[in-house]
């Protein structure tokens, strides 16, 4: 069975940072992009995941066939998009490959840093963001809903059951290690955080644990800077006063959503009345980049962007390689589980109809029974009711489980038809509501089923 799912996008494996930064979507851009895809008739359901390492659209296509060109058109409409075709940088996966890709991404197996934990939160955010968008029908329907729920579950399982998350191989911990290689102990060091990116905050948290002395926070929205500063026991500064703070800090973390560099060589030189005596580490994790690359040419400045971190990450990845095979097994099991779940999606309405029908029979039969047994005490009536409920559940359990199993094993269509025929489901709208008093009720449950 080919699942009607696809993923199209760019990642750190297919496109350099210069391309990825052009395709970075902020929260507001995501909504516009998803609505545009829906309006173009390209998708039934869609989720857009945009992180510093990837921009990917997970979708339930409206029609069979490639969705590459629809996504390419979407990406090409970005301001400052790269010259020429994006096609060489795009990848496209369908069906089980697309599912496996999402699970690997969520589990951190496709990350720049294998086992990276932040991606799980980013996938959850992308999913939730698409789910709450005002669209009819919703952009996250039963297919993507189930897909992302399973992906998050698989991601959590991989992290808890394997050693994929052990060692210092997240962007945050790598940044801390880098700082350690320059400053030794981080006790007493001062940090300037530019922007309110999630990864930037994670790095600040990690640096705080290592004992940095003070954290200054600058954000375009001053209130957000104040909020962040309070959270990290730091000091908020207006964004236009960065240059005044720069000479006093040892580490700069930049993760703004600015479309242009916020820290240039000119600003840096202007800020240093005297040449720097000590090193300055700048970690630019923003996409597009916040720090002009020429800043790294300053003598005592060590500038690293997300791609630069790849080298140090590779070392750590080796440590986690041993856990990858184990994690892959969990991902494969997750894919199978999703396949089964997807198949079962089709039988959910059938099972619901079976249960509604059985419940209606049970209630009707009980009512008829109690009408002739008026002398029964309340306690006895409750026991009879409980007995009928248990009996009904036991009778329905086996067929329901076998129906789901059969769907997962690819016997879907014939089973659904058989069940619908046997239970009379779909004969009329009324069949889902169960028997009606005025139509007369069968004398036994078996007769009811036959009817």
């Amino acid at each position, binding site marked *: 069975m080919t699942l009607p799912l696809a993923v199209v996008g760019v990642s750190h494996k297919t496109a350099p940072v210069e391309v990825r930064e052009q395709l970075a979507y902020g929260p507001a851009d995501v909504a516009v992009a998803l609505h545009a895809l829906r309006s173009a008739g390209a998708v039934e359901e869609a989720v857009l995941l945009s992180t510093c390492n990837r921009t990917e659209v997970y979708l339930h296509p409206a029609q069979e066939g490639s969705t590459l060109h629809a996504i390419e058109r979407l990406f090409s409409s970005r301001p400052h998009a790269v010259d020429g075709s994006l096609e060489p940088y795009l990848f496209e996966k369908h069906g089980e490959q697309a599912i496996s890709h999402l699970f690997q991404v969520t589990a951190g197996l496709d990350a720049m840093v294998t086992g990276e934990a932040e991606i799980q939160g980013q996938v959850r955010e992308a999913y939730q963001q698409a789910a709450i968008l005002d669209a009819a029908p919703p952009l996250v329907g039963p297919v993507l809903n189930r897909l992302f729920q399973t992906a998050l579950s698989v991601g959590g399982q991989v992290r808890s059951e394997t050693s994929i998350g052990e060692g210092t191989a997240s962007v945050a911990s790598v940044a801390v290690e*880098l700082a*350690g*290689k*320059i*400053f*030794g*102990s981080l006790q007493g060091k001062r940090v300037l955080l530019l922007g309110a990116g999630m990864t930037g905050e994670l790095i600040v948290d990690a640096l705080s644990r290592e004992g940095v002395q003070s954290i200054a926070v600058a954000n375009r929205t001053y209130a957000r800077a104040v909020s962040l500063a309070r959270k990290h026991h730091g000091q908020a500064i207006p964004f236009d006063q960065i240059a005044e703070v720069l000479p006093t800090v040892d580490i700069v973390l930049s993760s703004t959503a600015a479309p242009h560099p916020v820290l240039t060589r000119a600003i840096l030189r202007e800020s240093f009345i*005297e*040449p*720097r*005596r*000590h*090193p300055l580490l700048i970690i630019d994790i923003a996409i597009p980049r916040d720090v002009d690359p020429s800043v*790294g040419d300053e*003598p*005592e400045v*060590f500038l*690293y962007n997300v791609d*630069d971190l790849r*080298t*140090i990450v590779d*070392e750590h990845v080796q440590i986690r390689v041993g856990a990858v095979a184990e994690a892959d097994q969990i991902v494969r099991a997750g894919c199978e589980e999703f396949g089964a779940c997807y198949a079962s999606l089709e039988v959910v309405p059938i099972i619901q109809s079976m249960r509604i029908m059985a419940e209606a029979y049970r209630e009707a039969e009980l009512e008829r029974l109690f009408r002739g047994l008026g002398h029964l005490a309340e306690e006895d009536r409750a026991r009879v009711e409980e007995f009928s409920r248990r009996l009904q559940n036991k009778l329905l359990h086996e067929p329901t489980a076998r129906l789901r199993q059969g769907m997962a094993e690819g016997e879907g269509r014939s089973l659904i038809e058989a069940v619908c025929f046997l239970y009379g489901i779909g004969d009329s709208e009324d069949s889902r509501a169960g028997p009606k008093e005025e139509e007369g009720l069968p004398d036994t449950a078996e007769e009811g089923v036959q009817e």
Partner: protein
Amino acid sequence: MIHLSAFVFYLGALVPWIHLLVRGARRHTVFLASGLTGVAVALHAMALVDFWLTFSELPLGGLAPALSSLAFVGGLALVAMLLLREVARLALGLLPFVLVLQGAALALGIEPAPGDLDFQGAGFVLHVALAFLGLQGLAIASAAGILYLIQHHELKVKRLGRLFQFIPPLATLERVGGTGLSVGFVALSLALVLGWAWTVQNLGSLEIDDPKVIWAVMSWMVFLGIFAARRGRGRSEYRSALAAVIGFGIVIGTYLALRITAEGSGLFL
């Protein structure tokens, strides 16, 4: 023979250090490297004591014994660094220096000085020991400086491989270099004062064209130059590391030049 054994152990200690550099941190390799270094220094000490007992003369007079003694002070510095986990890997910078000195001493033949030494006694020994300590301080600063420059370069070109992983943090190297310079400068200054005092007391005056005096004063001025570099505007840490490396090169170069050209150099150092 014991000198040769010490050399072999120093050489043996270099192998696990290189292995650590190439293959990454392994606890047992660190133990092996530290153990071999420790054994080498212990053997070296035994060799120098043996020389003293055999020839009734401290191994400070002739060139080869003096080089071996200088290497021994380097070995002691190595052991001190190995005890401080943070800077243990600096050993890789200092070990080759010790090996070269000891190798040169062995090549020249560790024999007693051809003539009687002008100075003997506790004061002379203290003077030479302090001078050696001063040079070792500079050697440590130079080794730290080399590693600082390499690490700085690796960070700049963003090549964060094994070498980057192996070398201690810049701040640590800067601190070790600074400590080596401070201790070395104080020791060398005391050695100069002590040497001047003993010379005046025993010979009546100090000859300023004496190769020993020229070299000692030159070395002292090199220290001053490095300190000046550390205090300059901007990039002080980088300049300090560079100055320590160049300064140590000047000291060694001056010694070799004087050794080759100066008269009566058989007793020099």
